[in-house]
C-alpha cells in the first residue's frame, strides 16, 4: 500500500511539474498542451466512443497476430533445437530476420496485401515469430540433460517427453521469449498503424497519426499515454500470473532474471 501511494505521488508530482511548465507560458499550447487539455481530450474521446473503438480494433489485431506468431514460433523453436537441418536453415533465417526492425516489413506487407487487415496481421506476426522461436530454441537447449534422462528411465518418451518434460522445463525461457515477442508485436503494430491507413478498422496508431495531421497535440499525447497504459496492463495481465508461478515453483524472480 505504501509502495502504491509512493508511485501515485510520483505521477502526481510529474503531472504537477508539467502543469507548472505550461503555466510559465514559455511554450505555445499548440506544442505543449496542459495535462488538463489532455485529460479533456481523453474524456471526450471516451464519451463519443472513438477511444474504445480504437483500443478494440488495435487489441484485436494484436492478440490475433500474437497468437498466430506464438503458434508458429513455439513449434519452430522446438524443432530447431532438436533437428540439425532446421537449425541450419530456418534457425539462421530467424536470427537474420530478428535483427530486422519490424517496420521494415510494412512496405512489403502493403504491396502484398494492400491496405487490409492482412497487412496489419502480417507485420505483427513477423514481429513476433522470430523472437519467440529463438527464445524457445535457447530455452529447449539449456534444459539440463538430466531431466530428459530421468524422464526416459521412468518410461517417458516422444510426445509425452516433449509436452511433460521439455516444454515445462523450458518454461522460464518461453516466458521470456513470449514477453519479448509481445513487446515486438506491440511495436510493430503501432508502426504499421501509423504508416498505413486501413479502411477496415481505425486503431490507436491511426488516432495518433490523425492527431499529428490535425496538429492536435492533446490528442497525440493522450493516445501515447493510452498506448503506454495498455502496454503496462498487458504485461501484468498476460505475464503476471506466469511469473508468479515461476517464482513460486522455481524460486526464480523473473523480474531479475
Amino acid at each position, binding site marked *: 500500500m505504501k509502495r502504491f501511494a509512493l508511485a501515485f505521488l510520483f505521477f502526481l508530482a510529474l503531472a504537477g511539474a508539467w502543469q507548472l511548465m505550461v503555466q510559465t507560458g514559455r511554450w505555445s499550447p499548440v506544442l505543449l498542451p496542459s495535462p488538463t487539455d489532455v485529460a479533456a481530450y481523453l474524456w471526450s474521446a471516451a464519451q463519443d466512443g472513438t477511444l474504445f473503438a480504437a483500443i478494440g480494433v488495435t487489441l484485436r489485431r494484436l492478440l490475433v497476430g500474437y497468437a498466430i506468431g506464438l503458434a508458429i514460433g513455439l513449434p519452430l523453436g522446438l524443432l530447431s533445437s532438436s533437428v540439425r537441418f532446421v537449425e541450419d536453415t530456418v534457425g539462421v533465417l530467424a536470427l537474420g530476420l530478428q535483427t530486422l526492425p519490424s517496420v521494415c516489413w510494412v512496405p512489403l506487407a502493403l504491396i502484398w496485401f494492400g491496405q487490409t487487415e492482412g497487412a496489419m496481421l502480417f507485420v505483427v506476426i513477423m514481429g513476433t515469430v522470430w523472437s519467440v522461436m529463438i527464445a524457445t530454441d535457447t530455452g529447449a537447449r539449456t534444459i539440463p540433460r538430466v531431466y530428459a534422462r*530421468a524422464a526416459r528411465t*521412468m*518410461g517417458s518418451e516422444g510426445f509425452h517427453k516433449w509436452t511433460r518434460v521439455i516444454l515445462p522445463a523450458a518454461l522460464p525461457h518461453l516466458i521470456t521469449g513470449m514477453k519479448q515477442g509481445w513487446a515486438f508485436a506491440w511495436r510493430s503494430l503501432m508502426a504499421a498503424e501509423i504508416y498505413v491507413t486501413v479502411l477496415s478498422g481505425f486503431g490507436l496508431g491511426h488516432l495518433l497519426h490523425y492527431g499529428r495531421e490535425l496538429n492536435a497535440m492533446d490528442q497525440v499525447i493522450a493516445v501515447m499515454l493510452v498506448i503506454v497504459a495498455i502496454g503496462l496492463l498487458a504485461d501484468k495481465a498476460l505475464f503476471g500470473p506466469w511469473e508468479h508461478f515461476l517464482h513460486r*515453483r*522455481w*524460486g526464480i524472480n523473473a523480474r531479475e532474471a
Partner: protein
Amino acid sequence: MLDSIGSQGLPQPRPPKLIVDGVSKWFRTPRASVHALDDINLAVGDGEFICLVGPSGCGKSTLLDIIAGLTRADAGRVTADGQLVEGPGRHRLVMFQESALFPWLTAFGNVMFGLKLVPGLSRAERQATALRYLRMVGLERFAHANIHELSGGMRQRVAFARSLAPDPHVLLMDEPLSALDALTREQLYADIQRIQQDRRKTIVLVTHNVREAVCLGDRVILLSPGPGRIRESFPIHLPRPRDVNSIQLAEYTERITSALKGYIVPETV
C-alpha cells in the same frame, strides 16, 4: 519356495535379475577413440544390492547408463529379467546425483510423474502410493512443497521416493549422495538400508566413496580405469543395519581402498 518347474523336479536356482554379458564401449571423437569399458561381465541376483566403485574415468557411470539403456554398448549385451535391454524403460529406474527432480512439479508431483506412467493403476491408487513413499522417506509433510524449498538431503529423499514408487525391477543409483554433506549422507545411509530391508529391491549403486559402498552393498565390485575393467568383487559379510563409522566396516574399507590403489596407474609424462 519349492517352485519345482525343473524337469527333474528339483528346485531351480533363481536366475540372476540382471546380467551384463561381455559389454565393451568406446567413445569415438574425430581425433581419438577412448576405450571406456572392456569386456564387463556381471550377474546381479534378485534383491541384491551391489556397489560399483572405482576412480574417476573407470567407466562406472557409463556402465550404469548402458544397464539403464540410456547408452548403447558397442559389444556385448545386458539382459534384465531375461529380456534384452534395448532402451530406457521404467523397469530400470535411475536415481541421479542431484537436481534431476523436476522444478515445475511439487515433491508429490515428482513422485506421481513415474507413477502416472505405470499402466493399470487408478488415480486414487497412484496418489495413495505416492503418499506412502513420501511417508517412507519421512517427507509426507512436504508433499506439496516446491523443490527449491527443500534442502539437498530432502531433495535426494524425494528422488529416492520417486525412483521406488513405480516399483522398478532394478534401481540404478548414480552417485546419489555425493553432493550431500557428511551428516545428511549418514542419515540417508540409514534410511536406504531400512527401506532396502523392507522392499528387497535389486540395486546397482555407483560411487567413488568406498565406505559408502561397504556400508550399503551386499557386494562391492572394484573397477579400474583405462579401459574400465572389473578387477575384484568383495562380498560384504556384515550384519545390517550397518553403521558407516563402525570398526568392522572400516576394515573392509581399508582392504578395498588398498586394492583400489594398486590399480591406479601413476600418470606418466
